[in-house]
């Protein structure tokens, strides 16, 4: 059972445009929602993360929007640059305190972003 659904699978955006990647989750026990960025030949690295007590978090050109009632969250990349071309993974984690039983991070299937000049 895929617990975190990510879309689109791939995305092509013009330089300067807005990239939007969406994720939906099923488990209401999830209480931590990070996004990871992976460049070719490298391991994923944390980009930005949010907890469900806020609806939005912004760090530079990267913003997470979170909709708890819809169980959805999205990553917006403003003024997209060719250097942003990478694979982006959303993820969700629960904890023993949120009813998940244990800590375990579940990843979405990834979105390959290509920003063209």
């Amino acid at each position, binding site marked *: 059972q895929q617990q975190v659904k990510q879309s689109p699978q791939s995305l092509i955006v013009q330089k300067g445009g807005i990239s939007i990647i969406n994720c939906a989750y099923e488990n209401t026990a999830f209480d931590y929602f990070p996004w*990871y960025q992976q460049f070719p030949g490298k*391991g994923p690295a*944390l980009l930005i993360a949010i907890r469900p007590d806020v609806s939005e978090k912004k760090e530079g050109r990267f913003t997470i929007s979170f909709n708890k009632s819809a169980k959805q969250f999205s990553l917006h990349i403003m003024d997209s640059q060719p250097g942003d071309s990478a694979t982006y*993974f959303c993820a969700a984690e629960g904890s023993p305190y949120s009813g998940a039983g244990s800590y375990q991070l579940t*990843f979405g*299937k990834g979105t*390959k972003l290509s920003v063209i000049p």
Partner: protein
Amino acid sequence: DTAVSQTPKYLVTQMGNDKSIKCEQNLGHDTMYWYKQDSKKFLKIMFSYNNKELIINETVPNRFSPKSPDKAHLNLHINSLELGDSAVYFCASSRGQSGELFFGEGSRLTVL
């Protein structure tokens, strides 16, 4: 200084062989993980160790055996390699059992 380092970076071997991948972290973290990334880039957790104790053991063939000699090391040994084992294996660590994961650069295993 590399925070999470894994060796070898590339591994090409024949079916039926046994191979190991080593991982070391110098971040002082308590928890280490092995993830498998298949050809479609899907990241799936295999194992997690906290203070040398196994805490997550996903449905992985018992041909895969992790070993944590100390908090800073988590090695992965694979017996009787199969074609389907071809993937990139990532080691990662975190301060506790939650929060930011720090990944190594991956070990690409190709089974012929």
